[in-house]
């Protein structure tokens, strides 16, 4: 069985080896990897945390949580909440959700199995992190005009929202 602590260490080693700074933090009582991960164009999502939980003797879930926006005012929170379903419709991995205190998150959780082997686990993790971060950065760019009041929910929906992964 791969203990969550061992997989957490492996992920951190892997991230650091490919030049992604990260550290272990206690977030709401859970040990989480906080990674300074940038997308291909060098943009940084506000925050990216990764947690690992053992499910059974041979399976583990890895959760990637990216903060796309935080501190949105009440109007922007309501507007972003109105388009979040459209963002999720064609998203291949992960799910956007808005919470009442004005934050837009992208969450992705997936299962890895010991039979995959360590290299395949890490490859799946890194490809997932890439796809989630790309979606977060793309969504952030597409939603900026709505948050700045330069467009309306109706205009945005009419133009179509499609997030690249």
């Amino acid at each position, binding site marked *: 069985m791969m203990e969550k602590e061992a997989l957490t260490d492996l992920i951190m080693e892997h991230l650091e080896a490919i030049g992604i700074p990260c550290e272990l933090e206690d977030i709401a009582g859970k040990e989480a990897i906080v990674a300074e991960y940038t997308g291909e164009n060098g943009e940084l999502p506000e925050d990216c945390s990764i947690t690992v939980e053992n499910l059974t003797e041979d399976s583990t879930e890895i959760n990637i949580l990216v903060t796309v926006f935080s501190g949105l005012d009440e109007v922007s929170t309501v507007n972003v909440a109105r388009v979040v379903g459209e963002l999720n419709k064609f998203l291949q*991995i992960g799910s956007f959700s808005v919470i009442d205190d004005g934050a837009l998150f992208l969450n992705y959780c*997936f299962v890895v199995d010991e039979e995959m082997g360590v290299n395949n686990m890490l490859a799946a993790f890194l490809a997932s992190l890439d796809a989630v971060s790309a979606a977060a950065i793309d969504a952030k760019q597409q939603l900026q005009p709505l948050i700045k009041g330069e467009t309306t929910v109706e205009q945005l929906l009419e133009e179509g929202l499609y997030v690249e992964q």
Partner: protein
Amino acid sequence: MDKTGAKEYLAEIANLIEDGIHEAAIDSTEDGAVLLMTAASPFAEEGELAYSVSFEEFKADMYIFQIMIFTFTNIPEERFDELRVVINALNSRINLGNFVLFEESNAVFFNHSFLLDETANAAVAARILLRSIGLMENAVVNAGQWLLQLLAGECTVEEVMDALDREEE
């Protein structure tokens, strides 16, 4: 793993996960082969839930498996606004998978996808699928009850939101 052999690969997976499945069939669509399965519904004694599993190339050396559970269908258009609010609240609380409202088909699906290296064999894919489907079913039962009650007119959006807030306390 090879998309040209998708039918055979999905058939192998279907054989490996036959427990709890009422029916399984491989269908060909314009996007490729899809494994369609039915299992007992958690919402109605005689009812069934339909599942679809498909896979396609995601990027070099990596495939994406997509699982969809057809959760609620025939939803009247006038319920869409309420559903969007509750679905967002539920998705923010669900770990694995998410509900999506497809207005075009008047349906709510529960989705989850995962990536797997092309060297993974069907047995590994089936193990991850089974575990993922188990987690998805828990979410559909626990979170889906709120959508069921909302659609049945047994509670309002405000009541659902209050109940979800209380659950978190």
